[in-house]
């Protein structure tokens, strides 16, 4: 199969099927409805189950049950729905169940609007639910990357017995681009001897996040930390775009990173050495490339569709070595190439915002 033209949301759905996802539980919300709609047709074709749940709370708890039963399972939603899933995500992380959660982020807070946004970054990468847990969060910037990262998300989820979130946005979900499905055969997960399958000829399995004895819970949290540290050691990913000799380093992920690439191109044409470091994994955050760039770059500019969330991770990475500026648009408004470039020029001229 060569390249096919596909909408982001449908591409995620097809990628999930190829990645071995057999179960999908979700609740309608714009701008991700094409994911459940596609899977409602597609999953039965591969012997899977699509179930429209009565709420996002129910959907994520169905994911809990299916994941605990050993299946590859996914749910998708956007802002308000992802908020409702947070309790379930905490339980899933606590019980160390693998699953994939897609958030096609829309404008918030509250009902906000259905425009694209990146304002769920804190929720995705810093917690969202209660307790000491981590989600692996991936931030694709093209339909192709949506496909590749979704398939990989299932592998990572099983590898680490951890929930993985695909953090997209309304634009990525709706965007049509040619994609290639490199996976030729539908994948299947590893053996899961810990799953609840009926205790036939073995001691029974228990899926729980409850550790009533303080020492036991501390031990559990210590193990989780060890796991998260291990993930952070090997799963940080980024793309560097002309950042190796840049005097101004832009920082952006997802849709905003696409625009920033065009800004870098224009800046280079006009003699400003700009570059982009695009985090692909949002947790773990690729701190090193920023830290290293701080040795030669003069300044950083984080661009987001939010009031400034990822910029905090950029600042932590740069660790005070160089100024980190911020440009954000909210409300479903996408920052334009022109306004970003205007900021780049100001910074290049030594102007401080």
């Amino acid at each position: 199969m060569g390249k096919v033209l596909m909408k982001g949301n449908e591409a995620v759905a097809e990628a999930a099927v190829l990645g071995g996802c057999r179960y999908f539980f979700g609740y309608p919300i714009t701008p991700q409805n094409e994911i459940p709609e596609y899977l409602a047709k597609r999953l039965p074709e591969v012997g899977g189950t699509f179930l429209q749940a009565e709420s996002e709370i129910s959907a994520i708890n169905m994911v809990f049950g299916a994941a605990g039963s050993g299946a590859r399972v996914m749910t998708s939603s956007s802002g308000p729905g992802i908020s409702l899933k947070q309790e379930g995500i905490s339980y899933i992380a606590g019980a160390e169940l693998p699953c994939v959660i897609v958030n096609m982020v829309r404008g918030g807070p509250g009902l906000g609007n259905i425009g694209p946004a990146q304002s769920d970054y804190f929720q995705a990468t810093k917690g969202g639910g209660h307790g000491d847990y981590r989600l692996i969060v991936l931030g694709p910037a093209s339909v192709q990357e949506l496909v590749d990262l979704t398939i990989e998300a299932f592998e990572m989820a099983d590898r680490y017995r951890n929930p993985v979130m695909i953090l997209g946005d309304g634009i990525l979900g709706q965007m049509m681009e040619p994609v290639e499905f490199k996976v030729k055969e539908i994948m299947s997960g590893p053996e899961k001897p810990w799953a609840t399958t009926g205790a036939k000829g073995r001691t029974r399995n228990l899926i729980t996040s409850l550790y009533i004895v303080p020492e036991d819970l501390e031990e559990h949290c210590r193990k989780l930390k060890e796991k998260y540290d291990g993930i952070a050691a090997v799963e940080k990913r980024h793309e560097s775009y002309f950042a190796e000799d840049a005097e101004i380093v832009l920082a952006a992920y997802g849709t905003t990173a696409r625009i920033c690439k065009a800004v870098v191109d224009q800046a280079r044409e006009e003699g400003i050495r700009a570059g982009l470091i695009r985090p692909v994994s949002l947790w773990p955050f690729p701190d090193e490339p920023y830290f290293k760039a701080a040795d030669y770059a003069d300044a950083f500019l984080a661009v987001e569709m939010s009031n400034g969330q990822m910029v905090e991770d950029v600042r932590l990475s740069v660790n005070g070595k160089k100024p980190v500026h911020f440009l954000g648009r909210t409300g479903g408004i996408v920052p334009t190439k022109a306004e970003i470039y205007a900021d780049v020029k100001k910074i290049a001229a030594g102007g401080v915002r």
Partner: protein
Amino acid sequence: MAVKKVFTKPASMTDKTMHFCPGCTHGIIQRLVAEVIDELGIREDTIAVGPVGCAVFCYDYWDVDFQQASHGRAPAVATGVKRVHPDKVVFSLQGDGDIAAIGTTEIVHAAARGEQISCLFVNNSIYGMTGGQMAPTTIVGQKTTTTPDGRDSSRAGYPVKLTEMLAVLDGVTYSARVSVHSPANVVKAKKVIKKAFEIQMKGEGFAIVEILSTCPTNWGLSPVDSIKWLEDNVLPYFPIGEFKTPGEVSS
């Protein structure tokens, strides 16, 4: 003359002593479920889903594969389990607050979908685990820590009759309320629980079984007086019986 054991701990039950307060009939219900699992020979084919509430440690007492759900969500978790393992017996056990307050949505829709699961819940008309607050099933006039003068229906409304409510749904095959306040009722309760499991095993659909139970600690009564209080106050409001039965099924 041969000596025969006529009553002993069911094999599906572990040796752990249960954590329930003395005389709390939660323990009887735990045992009945294990007896049913034994009688149906399904210990190795069962996946149980537990609640948040006083029954939270039931995985310590049942020797079956088990998932611990969050507060109120057991029917959704059980749905996920059953969809992956349609050939296994999947059941949930919840409290009255778990199922009829915070988890109302999940139970109503699992029932409406006609999930092939058996949902049991323990109605002790109170939030036991959190120290005796008003439950959705608290009887009008009943004193709890959040209705210190007794539940006043003009402000706190009326108890939820979930089992009757579910009976009207087309997705529900079996709906029944039992109690464990006397030996005869214990025997009956077990039959009904068994019937709910058998309905699932025959692929006949969704079953809900409500089990009236005591909470001596938070009712502020002795275990024996609690039984009497249940008879005098809970039974009149929550009548025992089958509200919906599958014509074909006979136990």
